């Protein structure tokens, strides 16, 4: 509840890529985990909107994937390599292979893509969120609280899902 919400805020999980070398290193070190790459720009409105959700996804899907952000103005070479023309653009990479690429700031699209690769998560968001945020909080597309799943539970969930 309140404690869990605080726990979420301690460490930022989304990594901002500094260079192509940095990018290659992160992709290599991801091992078997998926890498969700967001190509963004500081001047891109929709990117700013989806930013917080990415942090939530990074927490929620920490066992399955790493989320990284690439500023297209600072990393033109990467943007060119992946033929990025609009932002935000997303890639899913696993074992250095690009599995998917799409454009758009729809949180739903990102979420369903993550679910496709990482499996559904148990999202009991409404109850705990409601307690801390108050009943006046409008139900909206923003996930109000992420239940942090411990690694052991995650494995159980994976094996449950055949």
């Amino acid at each position, binding site marked *: 509840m309140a404690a869990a919400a605080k726990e979420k805020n301690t460490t930022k999980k989304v990594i901002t890529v500094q260079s192509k070398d940095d990018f290659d290193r992160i992709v290599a070190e991801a091992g078997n985990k998926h890498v969700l790459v967001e190509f963004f*720009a*500081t*001047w*891109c*409105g929709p990117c700013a909107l989806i930013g917080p959700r990415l942090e939530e996804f990074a927490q929620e899907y920490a066992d399955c994937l790493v989320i990284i952000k690439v500023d*297209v*103005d600072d990393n*033109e070479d990467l943007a*060119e390599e992946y033929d990025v*023309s609009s932002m935000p653009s997303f890639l899913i990479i696993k074992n250095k292979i690009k599995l998917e690429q799409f454009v758009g700031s729809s949180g739903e699209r990102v979420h369903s893509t993550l679910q496709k690769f990482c499996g559904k998560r148990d999202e009991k968001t409404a109850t705990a969120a409601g307690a801390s945020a108050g009943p006046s909080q409008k139900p909206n597309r923003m996930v109000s609280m992420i239940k942090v799943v411990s690694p052991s539970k995650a494995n159980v969930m994976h094996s449950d899902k055949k």
Partner: protein
Amino acid sequence: MMLLKSLRSSGSFRSVLLLRFAGSVRNASKFDYDLVVLGGGSGGLACAKEAVEYGARVLCLDYVKPTPAGTKWGVGGTCVNVGCIPKKLMHQASLLGEAVHEAVAYGWNVNDRDIKPDWKKLVKVVQNHIKSVNWVTRVDLRDKKVEYVNSIGSFVNPHTIKYKTKQGELKQLTAQYVVIAVGGRPRYPPIKGAIELGITSDDIFSYEKEPGRTLVVGAGYVGLECACFLKGLGYDPTVMVRSIVLRGFDRQMSEFLAAMMTERGIHFLNTTIPMGVERTPEGKLLVQYRNTTTQTDGSDVFDTVLWAIGRKGLIEDLNLGAAGVQTYNDKVIVDHTEATSVPHIFAVGDIIYGRPELTPVAILSGRLLARRLFAGSTQLMDYTDVATTVFTPLEYSCVGMSEEMAIERLGADNIEVFHGYYKPTEFFIPQKSFRHCYLKAVAEVSGDQKILGLHYIGPVAGEVIQGFAAALKSGLTVKTLLNTVGIHPTTAEEFTRLSITKRSGVDPTPASCCS
């Protein structure tokens, strides 16, 4: 050579293909690039992107030296970054501030007392838009396979360009054709404190602090437009005019525009020149100036000083001497084909001497040049009857000759000037001043009366005049104009209702509309 010439004159499709193939094979071995464009602004980019359409191998070099205040920007040139685009956005912002007050008159339940702009937010959204345009420009160049380098290119010899990479490495390349499109930058006056303490249009659109009480030195369109949007945003601008406002524009319309600005509370220091700027103990700017008519000195304190005294061409870094390109003052001399004194070196845009310094002029001339170089076109740029607009709160737009130019060229007896004041319908309810809503048509006196120039002060002047520019180019006559049915209620229709001539001496103020 002979084979190519006969192929060209035969003109058949196959021979055009053969010609192009032969041309590229011949050039591929001799030059690194078919075309190198120096400058990635309106003219340079248009030329580069058009050239690749015809198979040319193109390199575009663009670089922005930071202003003394440290401002810099991305690819796209003056228009995108520190010209037309941010100017129009800030003009719009100031008009919207006016609109809030008008809304109250129309029954909107808004609190229009003490509305204030959020300057930082305005700058942020304007800069975000500019950056998105920089990005789209970069992607466009990438998609069209125009090679782009962010560095200053300069001549080693007529066919060789050198530049330094970001890592400091010196590179050299050869080009069959070179187009100089480096544009210009604002001038600073040669007085104490000008560079250290003043800013220019290069800085204002990303200025980190609120401009506050601003002195705009210069009464060309840049100065007037800046003063007007600053006024509309609630700041307190003063315009310092060396001699006349809007040099080169129709005198009567220019004076009307200045009167409109005065009516709106913008102060003018007429026939005055700045002598020096210094910082006060409170951190403001003390400007010393001299009125050249009364020969008296004065001074005043401002938060911001903005120089808008003219622009200089950026020939200084090009090493044009090594190429043999002739210049006049700080501009490149070209002929009617945009060729410089060196046959394979051309120039487009603000850098050329004696042409209108406007984005659409640079773009069209750049495109036509590329077609002549790589697509066998012979079409030349027509620099006459170019329409333009000054984006003050009541805007001034014109196409064709000013009244004085018509008198000078044809003689006062051979021209007829139709004119009239008008009252935009929307102005009545909020009681907006229409004192300076005025338009005129300058025409030949005889026959169907070919129209030589059209001038309009009022709302959305650019939108009003654009269509008339095409009409003028097609040979619009007073007869056709007055037989054109107007669209009602608009302000543009006033052109179709012109009936009073200056010669008649009749009062050009209408009683009311619809009659």
